[in-house]
């Protein structure tokens, strides 16, 4: 076995490495590490939790949720207040602090639902600014400006913890929390966040609710902060508003950027660097803020991938690109991929109308698409084709009229519900989230199918593992269907346009839809790719799918469609078989132009068209 293969095999168990390291760190006191070092490591672990939670919103969600500091403060104050009422049992304090943190995470995250990155950063800064004000107002509980002093002697399940005991408890708790966070991130949940980061319309078209997903991210990001807060109260012994200030926000950002904004395990490492590093230089205190600022600028400019990105790059260099995704059978093994069922339902729209700011985009459109057939919509720009597609998929709400798929009435449903009802679509410009492989992209269409609670994902419960296996199998089946199985392990963003279009088609069929909507799938493709697309579409038709497509490539439409609708100015002006539509006067004058109309029926190729014109 080559070194490469051996290394690749080891990598499968790579996830144990951080845990081994954590165990080592926990054992340090027994190995003779002094109290100073223990305290520094504790602080690194706690701040690491803060940063790891923050990365969930920042690295995956793309949102600068610096309100994390306020959540941390909430957790710390909760434990401190419990202590001042005589409760020093850590187990209780942790649960209480995490509950408060979850609630605070929700509240501080709400602005993020509506705001852009800049606005959220602003609001979170503001929140940190007014922490002292809030503390003052509730001074009866919080001790106001004096804070809560003398927080000592934590108990764990009744037994009092000494300094070393607290250290070990902190390290173990932090490691477990980070493990769960990592499990969450490398799963359909993390993929869902990346899909959302790519765009809300994409998320909705896959059956995900952006609102719920974002909120859940804020709550989950807050939990590590709550845990950290509980331990921090006993670490510090004295809780007051000044501990949770702009300097901490700075540290949070710097650690996130240094460790890599998508990272989990690198977070405590980066925090350790920022804490232990300055300690070594004696007169550093005065310059620490200046140094953090410079670090942020340097890292921002030079190292946008951070430590974990460097780690990933190193691994790829040593081990090479993965050949096949884990958990999928080797080629040649006698395992038949379950075949996908994409038999469609009948689609019918009646009198669908929509106006935007006084301009009529759709005017009473009646449209039908049968299963086992390809129905095309053509027409000039501004004719309403994409609006009609959006009205069917729910990305636009019609003013009047109804949309039926089989027995279901789609017109009043929310976009993500329509997706769950079996409507799949592609976009004019392929929407491909970053950092995901081809297989993961295709599997992402199944995230909205059935919901697995975050807790089950975090502990890798059997329920989650079973669903993951099923998702992968269905995704591979979809990739086989479009002939992309060989590319399953490739990073999706590196594919050329034609393959990305095909990837979107694969994604649209992986969830076994009742209706497939394709928005200009042939645009920008070269003749070879168009031929490929044609073959796949015919396959989808023969499998019984209801395929609806918008196109400008007239030749392509004539070759592939069973029935053609022509739209102009929001109305359907013709509906017939391709050859008849081609000769219709209204269609010619509004859309086709003389030359395209002059090409004869019976599969015209470019050459034939030219010789006709000559």
């Amino acid at each position, binding site marked *: 076995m080559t070194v490469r293969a051996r290394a690749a095999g080891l990598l499968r168990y790579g996830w144990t490495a951080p845990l081994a390291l954590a165990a080592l760190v926990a054992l340090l006191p027994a190995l003779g590490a002094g109290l100073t070092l223990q305290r520094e490591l504790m602080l690194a672990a706690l701040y690491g939790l803060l940063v790891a939670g923050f990365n969930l919103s920042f690295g995956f969600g793309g949102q600068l949720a610096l309100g994390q500091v306020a959540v941390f403060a909430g957790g710390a104050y909760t434990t401190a207040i419990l202590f001042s009422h005589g409760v020093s049992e850590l187990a209780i304090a942790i649960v209480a602090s995490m509950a408060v943190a979850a609630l605070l995470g929700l509240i501080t995250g709400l602005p993020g639902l509506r705001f852009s990155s800049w606005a959220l950063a602003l609001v979170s800064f503001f929140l940190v600014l007014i922490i002292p004000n809030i503390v003052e107002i509730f001074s009866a509980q919080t001790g106001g400006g004096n804070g809560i002093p003398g927080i000592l002697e934590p108990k764990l399940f009744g037994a009092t913890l000494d300094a070393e005991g607290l250290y070990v408890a902190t390290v173990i708790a932090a490691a477990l929390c980070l493990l769960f966070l990592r499990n969450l991130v490398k799963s359909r949940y993390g993929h869902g966040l990346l899909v959302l980061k790519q765009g809300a319309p994409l998320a909705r078209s896959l059956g995900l609710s952006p609102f719920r997903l974002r909120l859940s991210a804020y709550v989950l990001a807050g939990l590590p902060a709550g845990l950290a807060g509980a331990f921090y109260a006993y670490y510090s012994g004295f809780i007051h508003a000044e501990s949770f200030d702009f300097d901490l926000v700075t540290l949070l950002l710097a650690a996130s950027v240094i460790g890599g904004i998508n990272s989990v395990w690198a977070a405590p490492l980066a925090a350790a660097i920022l804490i232990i590093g300055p300690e070594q230089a004696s007169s550093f205190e005065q310059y620490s803020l200046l140094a953090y600022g410079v670090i942020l600028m340097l890292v921002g400019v030079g190292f946008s991938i951070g430590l974990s990105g460097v780690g990933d790059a190193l691994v790829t260099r040593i081990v090479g690109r993965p050949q096949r995704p884990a958990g999928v059978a080797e080629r040649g093994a006698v395992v038949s991929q379950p075949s996908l069922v994409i038999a469609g339902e009948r689609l019918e729209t009646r009198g669908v109308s929509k106006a935007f700011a006084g301009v009529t985009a759709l005017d009473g459109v009646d449209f039908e698409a049968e299963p086992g057939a390809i129905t095309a919509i053509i*027409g*000039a*720009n*501004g004719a309403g084709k994409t609006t009609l597609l959006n009205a069917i998929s729910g990305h636009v709400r019609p003013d009047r009229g109804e949309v039926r798929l089989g027995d279901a009435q789609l017109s009043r449903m929310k976009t993500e519900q329509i997706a769950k009802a079996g409507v799949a679509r592609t976009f004019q410009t392929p929407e491909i989230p970053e950092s995901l492989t081809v297989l993961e992209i295709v599997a992402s269409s199944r995230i909205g199918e059935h919901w697995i609670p975050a807790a089950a994902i975090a502990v890798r419960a059997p329920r989650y593992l079973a669903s993951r296996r099923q998702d992968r199998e269905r995704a591979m089946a979809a990739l086989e269907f479009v002939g992309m199985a060989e590319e399953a392990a490739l990073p999706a963003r590196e594919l*050329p*346009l*034609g393959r990305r279009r095909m990837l979107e088609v694969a994604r649209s069929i992986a969830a076994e839809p009742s209706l497939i909507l394709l928005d*200009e799938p042939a*645009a*920008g*493709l*070269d*003749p*070879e*790719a168009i*031929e490929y697309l044609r073959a796949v579409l015919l396959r989808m038709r023969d499998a019984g799918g209801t395929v609806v497509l918008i196109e*400008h490539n*007239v030749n392509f439409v004539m070759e592939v469609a069973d029935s053609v609708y022509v739209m102009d100015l929001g109305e359907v002006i013709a509906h017939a078989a391709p050859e008849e539509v081609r000769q219709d006067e209204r269609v010619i*004058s*509004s*859309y*086709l*132009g003389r*030359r*395209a109309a002059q090409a004869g029926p019976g599969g015209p*190729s*470019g*050459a034939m*068209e*030219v010789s006709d*014109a*000559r």
Partner: protein
Amino acid sequence: MPADGNGAAPAVLEARGVQYAYGDLVAVWSASLSARAGEAVAIVGRNGAGKTTLMFGLAGVLGASEGSVHFEGTEVTKWSPWKRALNGISLVPEGKRVFRELTVQENIALGLPRAVRGKERRERVEEIFERFPILAEKRAQLAGACSGGQQQLLSIASALTMRPRVLLVDEPSSGLAPVAVEDVMATLTELKAEGIAIVLVEQRIEEVVTGIADHVIVLEQGRVVLEDVPERIDLTDLEQRLSVA
């Protein structure tokens, strides 16, 4: 090497052995082309062949890692895109790329250099509107409110504000209804007649080879594999070549 029928006119834009790369991914290898006044050079090829990269390179948006670009005798390889634009090389990028939140008039006026003031400014804008009456009707509307075909015309019109001697056009017909494509091609033919050198990228081979082009260059995976005048090109052969792996 292109053997042209019209050897008299000197090349307005000439690229010699240019290479364009994104990081370490080379997209165009050692390409050469010449565009003469009043003539159109068509660049065809499959998707991913490097056509748009070459166009961005000629416009200066991408720097050449090798080779040189000459414009009216001067070497412009190191020139920034704004310098090229202000001196006679205009690119109409693909995808109806107009400033949607600006009005049609603002889109057109944008390219006027600072030196052009007051009355002359207004006159030059009116010149453009005379050529494109459809746009004149919509002059106060936001560009984003115009239809796709109008946006493509606007994209071309804004490039013309700068009075280019070389017009680079990237896939003007993409996403347009056939009727609109005819308008666009007619405009380009007019410009050719007025003496502007045109470099055109098109996906639809028969349209350019038999219509507007005086020279055809075929790009395949970043390399020029064929270069000739349309009369000598076998169309069916070419289409086959671009369809077969």
